[in-house]
């Protein structure tokens, strides 16, 4: 399984990369929505995108709507990982096609739980949900 991590912060990408790598994902990264779209148009088809909202060039909401506009990418699972916590924005993101929504700050276990809810079962998770 392949995850595309989209966040303008290298620190945040590093933290998310550690979590999903431990779960058995191969990872790619992009610093904004446009860079992520460019990679996907060049042939990268991730199983999962972890998407920040507030980014330069192209924000996460615009990225999600762009992905959902392309039928070839209908199987890509989209998870927002963002500080944006206003209810109307969460509803907006889910209505646009995000499957799940995680508000920063998060624990690794929260990411694992959401992925399991999405059927992206982690490989290396203990029965109590902790990352082994």
């Amino acid at each position, binding site marked *: 399984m392949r995850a595309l991590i989209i966040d303008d*912060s*290298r*620190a945040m990408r*590093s933290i998310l990369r550690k979590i999903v790598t431990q779960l058995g994902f191969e990872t790619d990264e992009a610093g904004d929505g446009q860079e992520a779209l460019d990679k996907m148009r060049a042939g990268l088809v991730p199983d999962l995108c972890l998407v920040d909202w*507030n980014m330069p060039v192209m924000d996460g909401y615009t990225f999600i709507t762009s992905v959902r506009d392309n039928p070839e990418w209908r199987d890509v699972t989209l998870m927002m990982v963002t*500080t944006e916590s206003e209810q109307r924005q969460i509803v907006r993101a889910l209505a646009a096609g995000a499957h799940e929504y995680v508000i920063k*700050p998060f624990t690794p276990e929260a990411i694992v739980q959401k992925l399991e809810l999405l059927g992206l079962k982690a490989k290396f998770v203990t029965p109590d949900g902790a990352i082994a």
Partner: protein
Amino acid sequence: MNLLAFSDASSFETETPDIDDVRGVTEDVWASLLGEEEILLPRAVPPGTPFDKDDVWSSAVTISGAWQGAVTLEVDADAARQLTSQMLGIPNPEDAEESDVADAVGELVNMIGGNVKGMMPGPSTLSLPAVAAGRAAFSNDMHEACRLDVSWRGAPVRVCVHVPVASDD
């Protein structure tokens, strides 16, 4: 220095976040980004005291909309390199580039500011972080509404919430 200003400081609410909520958010962000074992300890600093380090990194986000304000973070430079190395997995803090430090302290204030935004009346939008090696400065249409002084690994850390000065109009 970063100079932050609002184009319209005349028509918005001046509600301010509770210091305990800001402390809780900051502790949660620190634990999430740096690890549960990384404790922030309280520091007793008299009101009006300037940040007591010359070599400092600062970062800021602004919130615009139904509520307006800015959230700033100031971190001792050595501590900033340490937290950068931890967040980015750089073994030796001295090897952290300035762009790495800017990224790390920017993400810290982004997360703290985003959560402060969530506490206040909406809708509003959060800016991208502005980061500087040095202290942040504010135009005189803003004042400090809430300040949290803590220490991390013995080094000072300050989080402030600034709101526009109420207009007399």
